[in-house]
């Protein structure tokens, strides 16, 4: 690499590789999906559930590899099964920590077993756990696009009642909102979003797109629709810069994504601390 930082030629160089095109296209779709669903994950305090889906997805993906299937199939099947199972456990997320933890531990153990039965043990495990954005096929990009559009349509449909139910459950219920349907539908959407986002971040770093950008955005704007746009923007920034830097350095893309969202969060929290004093003085 020359020291002459010609941005255009660098981007051209990146785009000339098919695997980089796939990585970039997937990251666009996932950034939008994770930015939108992540806002509600943060608002509903469902981060732990999102992580559980991720780890259930790990069992699914490693099982799929063992059977010679596309790991994406296993990810989706595993996460959706987990999504329905956890939604069926009960309505109030806060009471479910223990059950989620129990299922999560078992799923990780199962994933470990599947992976250990497979020949290329460590490579497969590392790529599922920490992300393998540079190994996405054109077929997978297409599936991700279809699923991403489906998720966005579903979130658009659920938007207002879900926001209402998240902020004021009792009144939403009295207004005739179907709470069980809302909770279950959201859980399935999150499970689906997580299983596709794993392609980018991996199982263990799923929070970097599903939680951190939204958690940062809510400090920037107190209006949900704006905060969602900002959350998407942060995800896009992190994945694009992450891919760019990752391409020109020997270090993993997932690391740069987690690093960027983390330091953005820190910066926003610090800046917000000063602004927040205004409200504190008022109260």
């Amino acid at each position, binding site marked *: 690499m020359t020291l002459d930082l010609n941005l255009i030629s660098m981007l051209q160089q990146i785009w000339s590789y098919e695997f980089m095109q796939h990585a970039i296209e997937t990251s666009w779709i996932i950034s939008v999906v994770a930015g939108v669903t992540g806002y509600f994950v943060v608002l509903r305090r469902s981060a732990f559930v999102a992580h559980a889906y991720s780890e259930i997805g790990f069992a699914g993906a490693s099982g799929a590899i063992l059977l010679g299937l596309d790991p994406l199939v296993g990810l989706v099947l595993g996460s959706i099964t987990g999504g329905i199972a956890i939604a069926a456990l009960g309505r109030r997320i806060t009471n479910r920590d223990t059950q989620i933890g129990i299922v999560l531990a078992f799923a990780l153990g199962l994933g470990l077993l599947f992976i250990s039965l497979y020949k290329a043990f460590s490579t497969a495990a590392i790529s599922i756990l920490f992300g393998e954005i540079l190994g996405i096929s054109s077929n997978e990009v297409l599936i991700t696009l279809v699923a991403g559009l489906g998720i966005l349509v579903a979130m658009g449909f659920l938007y*207002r009642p879900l926001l209402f139910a998240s902020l004021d459950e009792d*009144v939403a219920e009295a207004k005739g909102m179907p709470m069980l349907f809302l909770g279950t539908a959201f859980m399935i959407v999150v499970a689906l979003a997580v299983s596709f986002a794993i392609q980018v971040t991996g199982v263990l770093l799923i929070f970097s797109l599903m939680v951190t950008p939204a958690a940062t955005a809510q400090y920037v704007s*107190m209006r949900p629709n704006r905060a969602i746009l900002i959350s998407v923007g942060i995800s896009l920034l992190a994945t694009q810069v992450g891919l760019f830097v990752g391409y020109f350095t020997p270090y993993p893309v997932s690391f740069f994504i987690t690093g960027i969202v983390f330091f953005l969060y820190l910066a926003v929290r610090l800046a917000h601390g000063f602004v927040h004093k205004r*409200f504190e003085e008022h109260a």
Partner: protein
Amino acid sequence: MVRVQSKLIEAENLSAGYGAKTVWRDATFSVGGGEFVAVIGPNGAGKTTLFRLLLGLQQPTRGALRILGAPPRRGNPRIGYVPQRHLIDSETHIECVELVRLGLSGARWGINPFSHADRDAALAALESVGASELAHYPLGVLSGGELQRIFLAEAMVSNPDILLLDEPLSNLDLKRETDLLHLVNDVVRSRGVTALLIAHNINPLLPHLDKVIYVANGKVATGKPSTVLTSESLTALYGIQVEVLRDPHGNVAIIGVEEHHGDVR
């Protein structure tokens, strides 16, 4: 201004319960338009159960109940509801006007990112409860009294005919309690809204009330405060000797039951 209207709520031999357990039975009462009604009684007597019946969240075990001329149904936009609740999580970084707006359109599917009409209605509702200055504050930083105003605006934003307020005064200090009661009374009188308010202490409410619904001992007594809050009436309700004392200011103290709902203050 007292608007005399037909009965907005009518209960006849109404009984409520959960499964085989009856909470209270044989309640017969009515509430007219523009009335300010207090629902009083010990903890667990079934005050919130009455609200659940009115909201259509629960079916009566016996008897008939009509609200706004029809049996209760879930999601009636002519009923505004402020549930009993805990404080909002201090990590909730959403501005107040958003919650109020959801009171108007939160039950509709889909997004409406460009609806300024909703937002204007929400701002107007905030103004009507004297909380305009809180519109753009995050929900998480508000005090109990401020939150109650926001919840009231959320309930009022759809211009309901009936307001159901479940213990809005709990956790408020004396000053804020008085302020909120004056506010509810203003809404009732100026808009002709009927308000049912669940409370523990009847005294701060007495100057404003048209009617009391007293729930205790599996029974319900209703009428004007001066009729219901007497030794005879409450003795009949509880089935044990109950004494109602009045101080020169008109405050009542109820003696002889475990809980003192009418502490003199």
